[in-house]
């Protein structure tokens, strides 16, 4: 029998199938639907994340002093100053100072770097006050190195003195009244003019580093909390990190073991996070896959029953010229069709489910972009369910094909 005819008969079998077959199909539907939903939700979470992290810039490194015991996961360093680790080795806390700056200047792979200090300050505006984070930056390079974008006004300039740039949230909603451009804000009893508002959701304040030394009592002139470095060639990021490390280790008289500074790149962070995300995702998919496997067992079970039910028909077919492989094909097609129908319905339900989930989960920021079922995941879901049908149906179909015609005919 030609394969197309086998397919036709298999199709007829599905059409004439009983409630049992439809229950079997339901098993596949549930499995596929959950996989599709999870894939699309996971996918859009990842998209949202990449979007958020993409702004961090792949060519930016952050240098901090301190004994790093492995980089922390979200590890830009807390910026509160060098940690006083390794107290036994040396009494002095490791810091970043002019020597390090000199050393960095000598590295040609660095395009620019921004020396920073930061700490908490008291801010007041129209009689209200609060404590926010202040970062002193090298205003000559800050605008080139930062990944923050200006919303209103301008970035800091080399001639700036008593001016600040503030985060979007601080401007908008931190105080009772929003802070507008050119408004005066009091920081530790000094008055500053707002020249720029960032397009972000932070409450940070940025000002020239020389002013910041005066605002932050515990900071010593010429000592930096961190140095933000922009590399010339993002492609050579790791190489550049290596060069900086070698150079600094030499200057600071430390070895790989006693290293008292650390360099983190936002790109690494981004990678770590998305790795975390995708392993989380695979875990969820694995759970959904279990329900697919249960569905497959259902298909196998239903196929065994179906072969049993159709034993006599198999005998009849063999008596009128059916070869083993014809019977095998018919039953395999039948199983594949069950898988296909299940997969198809599963994709539909999965799509509905994934469209509904963000609403059910509340306005989660992770799903801001909305969910999206990709053509790829549809194709994958359909082929996986067909393959599952075939695998599950193979043994029963094979048994059916091997039935001896006499035995099959005698079956009632």
């Amino acid at each position, binding site marked *: *029998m*030609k394969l197309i*005819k086998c397919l036709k008969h298999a199709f*007829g*079998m599905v059409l*004439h199938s009983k409630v049992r077959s439809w229950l079997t199909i339901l098993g596949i539907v549930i499995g596929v639907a959950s996989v599709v939903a999870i894939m699309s939700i996971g996918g859009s979470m990842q998209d949202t994340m990449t979007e958020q992290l993409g702004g961090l810039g792949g060519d930016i490194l952050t240098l901090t002093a301190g004994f790093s015991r492995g980089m922390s996961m979200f590890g830009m360093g807390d910026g509160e100053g060098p940690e006083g680790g390794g107290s036994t080795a040396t009494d002095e806390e490791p810091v970043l100072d002019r020597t390090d700056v000199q050393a960095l200047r000598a590295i040609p792979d660095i395009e620019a770097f921004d020396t920073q200090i930061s700490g908490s300050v008291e801010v007041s505006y129209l009689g209200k006050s609060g404590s926010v984070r202040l970062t002193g930056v090298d205003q000559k390079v800050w605008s080139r190195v930062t990944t923050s974008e200006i919303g209103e006004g301008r970035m800091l300039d080399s001639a700036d003195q008593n001016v600040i740039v503030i985060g979007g949230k601080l401007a908008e909603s931190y105080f009772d009244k929003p802070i507008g451009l050119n408004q005066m804000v009091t920081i530790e009893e000094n008055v500053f003019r707002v020249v720029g508002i960032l397009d972000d959701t932070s409450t940070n304040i940025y000002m020239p580093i020389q002013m910041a030394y005066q605002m932050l009592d515990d900071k010593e002139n010429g000592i930096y909390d961190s140095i933000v470095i922009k590399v010339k060639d993002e492609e050579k990021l790791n190489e550049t990190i290596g060069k900086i490390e070698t150079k600094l280790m030499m200057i600071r008289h430390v070895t790989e073991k006693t290293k008292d500074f650390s360099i983190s790149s936002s790109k690494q962070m981004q990678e770590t996070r998305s790795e975390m995300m995708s392993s989380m995702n695979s875990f969820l998919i694995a759970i959904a896959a279990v329900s697919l496997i249960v569905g497959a067992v259902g298909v196998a079970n239903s196929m065994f029953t179906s072969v049993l039910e159709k034993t*006599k*028909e198999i*005998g*009849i*077919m*063999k*008596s*009128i*010229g*059916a*070869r*083993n*492989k*014809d019977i095998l094909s018919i039953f395999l097609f039948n199983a594949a069709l069950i898988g296909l129908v299940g997969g198809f319905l599963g994709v539909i339900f999965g799509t509905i489910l994934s469209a509904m989930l963000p609403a059910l989960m509340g306005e989660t920021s992770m799903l801001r972009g909305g969910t999206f079922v990709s053509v790829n995941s549809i194709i994958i879901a359909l082929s996986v369910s067909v393959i599952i049908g075939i695998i599950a149906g193979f043994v029963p179909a094979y048994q059916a094909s091997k039935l*001896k*015609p*006499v035995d099959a*005919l005698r079956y009632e």
Partner: protein
Amino acid sequence: MKENNIILHLDNVWKIYKMGEVDVPALRGVTVEIKKGDFVAIIGASGSGKSTMMNLIGCLDIPSKGNILLKNQDITKISESDLATLRGRTIGFIFQQYNLIPSMTIYANVLLPMEFLEYDDKTASEKTRKILETVGLGKYMHHLPTQLSGGEQQRVSIARSLVTDPEIILADEPTGNLDSVTGKSIMDMFYNLWKKEGKTVIMVTHDLKLAEYAHTTIELKDGQIKTINKK
């Protein structure tokens, strides 16, 4: 090529069924030659091995011992798929219980053997319509088997067996489930197939009256041939 007109040759054929530990010998050394164009009736008491012999002749089963030559081919030595095709082309089966596929229409049932033998669609469709007209069931083409009477269903099964134009018609108690009038009309069809179309007809029956239609009568007893009578 001696004895070219021998279409079927059973040579010392044994069939032993295993019932658990017990061996049940259903055929015990049957040797017989059937000529092309003969009308053979296999008779004998119930349990004498008629159906077993029929299944072996029809290549639905293989002997425990001995050889069966169908058109000079030893059926114990050819592959499963060749045997299926040989069976499909050479033999038309008619069973006591009609053995139509209940979920398929009369038309689809008759078409089925040609699908297995990969006839082209047009020929298959034409042949199906023609043969159903011939057996007088053209108007029931799109009915399901259960919507037809026993005699009509048996005519469908005859149509199905004839549609591939086989040389041998094998019928196992074809009138066993039918009343005598309907049974006689079925027997007339067989007689015509033999007389007018030159088919080799082999029929199992326990009804001696029906056996009278046949040219050769083989009587089985306890799995062995007791007598062979020719008219």
